[in-house]
């Protein structure tokens, strides 16, 4: 048996077995099997010591545990909702976790059906008939929406319009996707964090391929005129892409009913929790664009017994068949996160989803009101309805307040010179008294 000092603990060959196998292939030494010219052979060391499982666990845990144990009131595109334990236990079943993409559907019906359920839940939430079974994250999904617009639009046009408040990171990803298709990204103004519809109208033209807006916005406001944005886009034969998430969609206007052609966002707000930005790119669109959709799609069919069965479908859009003419280069995606999202959504059900969304509005409002009562703080800054989070003005410098809060075990966003942003979900709601008290001490 290999052991940790001499080999991989997961390569189960005995020395005798190795000898016999070498003999079977006509080799005397393992090194003979490597057809590597001497001039590029590596004879150095990585200097990475082998460790036992226990030692490895301790070494990795020791590093991770250097992270401070803070109560996070953080959002701005990455959210921490409580994930029930059964989601972990079901998703960690090895038949799911260690399986591959379902290129042999007869032996992978379970995962295919789970992805079909995921797609179906997103169809219910968005009102759009086509949802793929994942992109990497919200930012790359937005990038894919821009290139989709470039492919499907009847008239030529190269401008992608995004709100001036868009996170720099998301914009950077979008620009990288857009550049290859010769699209340029421009901003339009916002007013109190929502779309300034008149200013957007001024920015529109026939050369606009895609208009992007978010609801809730990055400052937590609920967009009040998404339908007007959709109309503006439609009037100019541009696509309207709406950024949102599954929890918000359980309460806010259905994207299809406000004219969204594409819906993107982080679907991992259900199912994953805080994961240092790891997410699940939601991507839903209209039937018209079905054959231009990026990523994998699961469809229903029948098997030889006449029973309903599932399979990856419309694969001629994808890179392994269409190569440089594929709708996207994506191959490995976020399937397992989509499974988690489907399980979490199924656990919540219609009532649980709705109630969670209502909580997101009420908690943000309640905590904003309480912070507004603190001297030196005005909240919310934006005179809008909020979802999960809001921005507060601080008389003291925001960075100093954030630093002082960290000393008290609390993390908030500091924006610019005199604004902090606070996000409240069920995972930190029990610490809001602490937050309000601490802000009272430092503001």
């Amino acid at each position, binding site marked *: 048996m290999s052991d940790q000092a001499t080999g*991989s603990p997961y390569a189960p060959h005995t020395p005798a077995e190795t000898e016999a196998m070498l003999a079977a292939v006509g080799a005397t030494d393992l090194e003979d099997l490597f057809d590597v010219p001497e001039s590029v052979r590596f004879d150095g060391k990585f200097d990475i010591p082998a460790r036992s499982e226990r030692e490895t666990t301790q*070494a990795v845990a020791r590093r991770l545990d250097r992270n401070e144990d803070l109560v996070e009131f953080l959002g701005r*595109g990455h959210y921490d909702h409580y994930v029930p334990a059964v989601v972990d236990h079901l998703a960690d079943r090895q038949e799911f976790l260690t399986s591959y993409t379902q290129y042999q559907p007869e032996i992978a019906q*379970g995962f295919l059906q789970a992805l079909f359920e995921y797609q179906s839940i997103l169809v219910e939430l968005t009102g759009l008939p086509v949802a793929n079974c994942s992109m990497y994250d919200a930012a790359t999904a937005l990038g894919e929406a821009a290139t989709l617009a470039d492919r499907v639009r009847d008239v030529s046009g190269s401008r992608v319009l995004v709100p001036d408040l868009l996170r720099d990171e998301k914009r950077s990803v979008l620009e990288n996707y857009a550049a290859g298709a010769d699209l340029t990204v421009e901003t339009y103004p916002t007013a109190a964090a929502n779309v300034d519809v008149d200013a957007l109208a001024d920015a529109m033209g026939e050369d606009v391929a895609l208009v992007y807006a978010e609801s809730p916005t990055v400052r937590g406001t609920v967009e009040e005129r998404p339908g007007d944005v959709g109309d503006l886009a439609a009037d100019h034969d541009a696509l309207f892409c709406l950024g949102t998430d599954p929890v918000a969609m359980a309460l806010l206007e259905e994207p299809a009913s406000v004219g969204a052609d594409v819906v993107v966002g982080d679907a991992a707000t259900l199912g994953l929790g805080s994961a240092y930005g790891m997410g699940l790119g939601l991507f839903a669109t209209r039937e018209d664009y079905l054959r231009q959709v990026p990523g994998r799609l699961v469809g229903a069919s029948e098997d030889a017994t006449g029973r309903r069965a599932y399979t990856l479908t419309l694969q001629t859009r994808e890179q392994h068949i269409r190569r440089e003419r594929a709708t996207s280069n994506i191959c490995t995606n976020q399937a397992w996160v989509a499974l988690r999202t489907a399980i979490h959504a199924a656990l919540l059900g219609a009532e649980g989803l709705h109630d969670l969304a209502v909580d997101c509005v009420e908690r943000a409002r309640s905590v904003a009101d309480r912070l507004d009562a603190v001297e030196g703080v005005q909240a919310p800054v934006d005179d809008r309805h909020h979802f999960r989070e809001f921005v507060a003005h601080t008389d003291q410098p925001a960075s100093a307040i954030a630093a002082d809060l960290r000393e008290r075990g609390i*993390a908030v966003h500091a924006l610019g010179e005199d604004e902090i942003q606070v996000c409240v979900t069920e995972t930190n709601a029990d610490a809001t008294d602490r937050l309000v008290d601490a802000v009272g001490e430092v503001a």
Partner: protein
Amino acid sequence: MDHDQARWTEDDRRYEPLLAEKDRTTVDVDGTDAGLPDDLTRDTLTVPQLSEPEVARHFTRLSQMNYGVESGPFPLGSCTMKYNPSFTEDLAARPAAGVHPDRGDQSVQGTLAVMHDLADYLGRIAGMDAVSLQPPAGAAGEFAGVLIAKAYHEHNGEDRSEIVVPDSAHGTNFASAAMAGFDVVEVPSGEDGRLDLDALGAAVGPETGALMLTNPNTLGLFERDIEAAAEIVHDAGGLLYYDGANLNALLGRARPGDMGFDVMHYNVHKTFATPHGGGGPGAGPVGVSEELAPFLPAPRVRETDEGDYEHFEPEHSIGKVHGFQGNWLVLVKAFAYIARLGDAGLADASAMAVLNANYLASQIDYEVPFGPFHHEFVASAGDQDAADVAKRMLDYGVHPPTTKWPEIVDEALMTEPTEVENRRSLDRLADAFDAVAAEDDETLVSAPQRTSARRIDQVSAAREPRLSWRALEE
């Protein structure tokens, strides 16, 4: 070896019913519940409303109708389906790993330490000077790498429009190059299944931004002329890109950086044993030479003089390819795997992977052209249809190889057993190949018989796409 996969059957039309067939609950959404004006909220929401035990049973049944690495052999060529150590899952699940990406560097020193050390390990393993962990998959790593090549040339005042790719390359290479705005120039393979230097010389020129190459290639063959190929590309001013999909063949034996590659991606869900998760998430870190380090995605992590870690922006960064820092939880698992194996374990993993591929190739009845192999080989199903062969193999309790690709081999069976199978397991796998090889076409086309579902009609699935509960009702 036999295998009957679990099969939950509801009636003569369905296996396990859909959630929406178990329940559909519609709630009226009233904005006043949340104090929102009614015109800002939807009217109704329809989603199944089931109890936790019902949901648990539903997804447990679905899991039983799926096949993972712990179910049995999984020799999918080019996919490196090795065993995924369970302890790495527990590490990724630690509360300390679940932090928000907008926290200040000082409060996430643990996360930054893991990222710093993993990037360092990856650099040493492949001979690269700097590594970014941001790309969330192999194809995203390719996209980042190609953008780096583009930015590098533009920085030098050159506008190069072409990426050269061998015909045997992964489809993602072509697609990633096109997504970055390059034209793709395809080079035919030589008679021996390797890069044809004359064809390469003809394809490479002043427009060449980079050559993308997998080594060993998708036939499992080491590109022996790699140094000459590098010289051709470099002399023309182009860069050499290494597709890391097959890195499991070379650990401790050869490094892309030493072969002349300037930029590469790693597939940690292949080489470094993080689970494939039914299609993802993976992670596709990108490594570069010192000259290209200023172009890496932002931000990177570095160690300060005080021994702390901090983010920094590379001078000429291409910007971002993921909204945050990539698939962080996957990176934790990869770090744990590398830290567990160390030099000796990594070198052994490659040796046993290569031994297993050669041994299995020698034991099966199907013809195996080309060679010598490394981590994988491509057999030919000959007169049989490779897709049917794969379906029939499912009945023998093994996952079949990748089929019909690369096209350079007729009816290809691309097979990568990885290091995790022992001789007994490989002998059983060979028995499955040989049993199928001896069967008639009628048996093959009526396979599989013993999987949860029988042969599925792919054509009607694509002709009449039904992609959701709603579509099934129409």
